């Protein structure tokens, strides 16, 4: 109980509340737009199937499936964080605030892991291109 009192010096003032309202609204829009984007991707694959054949489209869908699953997971977490933070700011609900920040931390953790994987892949591609002479020869 004692250590809870020292950290209470930080509070969410009006400026931060307004920032939180904007962050949660934009995060919500971001998540909804991402869901629309997934829907469009699926529609594009279905339409492409007519041109490239069902087998090739199936393989394309297989490749996209992992990316779509990660995107859905990420945006469900983001949406949940945004909803909880919005609720917390509107009704001064400490429980929802904590839950929202927890979801935000989870979202940033997933993004962090994805970025680490992406940067490793970029470095590997760069090294590969250096080795095969893909750079500097046009």
């Amino acid at each position: 109980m004692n250590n809870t009192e020292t950290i209470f010096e930080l509070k969410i003032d009006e400026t931060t509340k307004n920032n939180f309202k904007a962050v949660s609204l934009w995060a919500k829009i971001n998540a909804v737009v991402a869901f629309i984007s997934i829907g469009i991707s699926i529609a594009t694959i279905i339409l492409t199937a007519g041109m490239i054949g069902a087998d090739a489209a199936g393989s394309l869908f297989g490749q996209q499936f992992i990316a779509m699953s990660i995107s859905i997971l990420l945006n469900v977490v983001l949406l949940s964080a945004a909803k909880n933070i919005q609720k917390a700011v509107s009704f001064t609900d400490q429980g929802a605030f904590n839950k929202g920040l927890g979801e935000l931390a989870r979202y940033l953790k997933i993004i962090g892991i994805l970025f680490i994987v992406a940067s490793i892949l970029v470095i590997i591609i760069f090294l590969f291109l250096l080795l095969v002479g893909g750079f500097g020869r046009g």
Partner: protein
Amino acid sequence: MEERENILSDDLLIDPVSGGYLRESTSWSKVTAIAGFIISIFFFIFVYQYISMLTESRSVFRRSGPSGQEKLTAVFYVLAGIIHFALSFLQFKYAGNMQNALRNNDQGSLIAAFNNLKIFSLIRMIVAILVVIMFALILVALMDKQSF
């Protein structure tokens, strides 16, 4: 007495639970930002390579210059790299300010951190909307192609 009043206040507070989550988000934001910087640097190297390839092919094939589409692609890649770098920078600043706020109980840094997060979310939202518009245009073009 003062602390007791604070605990019973109606304001939202950074309590140990939310403080823990903010610490976690700070460390992950820093990791993401550093990885983002690395990706941006390599991205710029790839873009530089792409532009020099265009210039080289221009001199080899004695063309008047890169086509409009090639120029547009190069500009698109440069813009994407700049936006990616800016997002990583904002995330890094958010992490730094939040770390300072939590370590020193600095209200100013807390406000600055959430301001960084606000700008970060705004840019992310704009990029997401632009990407979805681009996807929708591709879908419309495909549908158009299928109808003919």
